[in-house]
């Protein structure tokens, strides 16, 4: 039957007994099994994460009961005198992470832009493999590299920074930079050197995410910019970078999460010191992971609880950082392509 409309009649003016019908959503049994299976696997991730959090939280109860919230403000860690606190350790973790990101972020961004926009095709795949291999180097190797090869040279850089920028508290070191034989040991085993080693570890991760995101920038907009007479860099600035903002942030946050928890390289490089200071160039620092790794072997049960509490605090911080990152990335255009 053909429905004919009058010349001035709209299809939408037809009688209103037209309501949607219900369709049976039943899936075939194979699909149902797979759905159930997938749900279980997905939930298990949440369950495992929750279990870790609960375990750590449960282990922290004795510590919080004993030291109260002073545990978070006390800076010294002296189990013999029953003085335990993680404020210095948390600050040290943040210092190392800040140094690592300050080095890794610009390097990752520029290498991602170069690889995805400027490199010739053959060079591109070579560089991509190179960066991915960088991620495959074990942390302990970076730690050894940092201690034996980097440190002797990096002390000079730290000395130079102290000499010229020492008026800023961030670059201050508790020694005289102008002294004829300047005290090399005061610049060694610092958060700065640990931060450089950690930056090498997180750089490939951030660069890979940024590179993938840049390569997904819509070609239509790229052509629009070029057709207006833009140079290649102008096109990158107007189209690729704004599009990739979500990936840039997401990649950096991923790097930060890793930098907060990096253990073995930091342990090999730093000399533990429990002071509240934000001076990465100076000798001595401590991070949560280094603390746990260093004190774990000789810990009594109450100290063990304290270490696990420190771990719990780190867990919460990392969770917050990654959740914030996920929220920012999900609301951006490139969010769909970052994990």
């Amino acid at each position, binding site marked *: 039957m053909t429905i004919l409309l009058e010349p001035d009649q709209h299809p939408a003016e037809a009688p209103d007994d037209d309501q949607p019908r219900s369709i049976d959503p039943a899936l075939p049994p194979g699909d149902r099994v797979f759905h159930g299976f997938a749900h279980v696997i997905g939930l298990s991730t949440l369950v495992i994460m929750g279990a870790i959090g609960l375990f750590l939280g449960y282990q922290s109860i004795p510590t919080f009961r004993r030291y109260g919230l002073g545990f978070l403000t006390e800076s010294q860690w002296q189990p013999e005198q029953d003085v335990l606190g993680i404020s210095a350790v948390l600050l040290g973790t943040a210092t190392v992470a800040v140094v690592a990101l300050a080095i890794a972020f610009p390097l990752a961004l520029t290498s991602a832009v170069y690889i995805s926009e400027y490199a010739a095709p053959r060079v591109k795949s070579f560089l991509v493999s190179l960066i991915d291999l960088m991620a495959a180097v074990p942390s302990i190797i970076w730690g050894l590299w940092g201690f034996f090869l980097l440190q002797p040279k990096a002390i000079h850089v730290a000395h130079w920074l102290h000499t010229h920028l020492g008026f800023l508290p961030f670059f201050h070191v508790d020694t005289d930079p102008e002294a004829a034989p300047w005290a090399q040991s005061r610049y060694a085993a610092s958060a700065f050197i640990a931060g450089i080693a950690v930056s090498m570890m997180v750089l490939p991760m951030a660069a890979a995410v940024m590179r993938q995101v840049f390569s997904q920038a819509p070609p239509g907009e790229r*052509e*629009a910019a*070029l057709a207006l007479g833009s140079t290649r860099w102008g096109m990158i600035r107007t189209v690729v970078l704004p*599009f990739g903002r979500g990936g840039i942030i997401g990649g950096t946050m991923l790097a930060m999460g890793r930098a907060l928890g990096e253990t073995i390289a930091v342990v090999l490089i730093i000399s533990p010191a429990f002071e509240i200071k934000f001076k990465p160039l100076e000798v001595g620092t401590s991070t949560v992971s280094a603390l746990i790794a260093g004190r774990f072997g000789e810990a009594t049960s109450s100290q063990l609880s304290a270490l696990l509490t420190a771990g719990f605090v780190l867990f919460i911080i990392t969770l917050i950082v990654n959740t914030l990152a996920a929220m920012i990335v999900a609301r951006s255009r490139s969010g769909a392509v970052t994990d």
Partner: protein
Amino acid sequence: MTAVPLTDLFEPTPVVEARGGTLEARGVSAWFGSNKVLERVSLDMPANSVTALIGPSGCGKSTFLRILNRMHELVPSARLNGEVLLDGVDIYADGHRITETRKRIGMVFQKPNPFPAMSIGDNVLAGLKLTGIKASRSEKEGIIERSLTRAGLWKEVKDRLKEHGSALSGGQQQRLCIARSLAIEPEVLLMDEPCSALDPTSTRRVEETIAEIKEQITIVIVTHNMQQAARVSQQCAFFLAEMGTPGGIVEAGTTEQIFGEPVDPRTFDYVNGRFG
């Protein structure tokens, strides 16, 4: 920028001096890798008029268009031969900067592509920002109004210039792209099937825009829609590619000729809908 005489303050449409450029293609051939896609195409596109490139899919019309503003070479394996003369000077000659050429020969694409991160006003000015053209704030406002008026979009968006470019409908986005191209005052505007993704109302608006701006600009438009070609153009070139051979122009001439008395039987078959 040309000074606006006092009398123009009382005119509804802005007057810009006619400065369309003449485009000539001489013996243009194109390859993608070892695959030849265009065979020695020569065509004159006169100033201040609309030339339509018609023909079935895949016969090289868009490739030829992209050669006219040096977008063809963006593809890594693309190569070409021949000359493209803008006002008598080959744009492919050594020493000619690509960015200068693309400033003088603009392009509007099939799928509207406004920059989503920018507002409508910033989209119109994007061409100036990208090519380093400096303008004062009042000049910029004037450019935005002029360009959007020429593109037939000013009345609809003049109160929401700060909104994002992607908040408009498809037809409005395409007119925004046209305004964006016009803002840098090109001599030629290339249009690659600008209406094929638009609804009929938007198509009509864009065709009205073409009719108005052709007085100041040369337009070359690729279109699948023969009726559109008949409506908007003064010259037509019919492209065809036989199976496995590179594309080329079968016949070119005025629109009346191509549609009324085509010389080649293939042209006759195409414009009468026998294939395509």
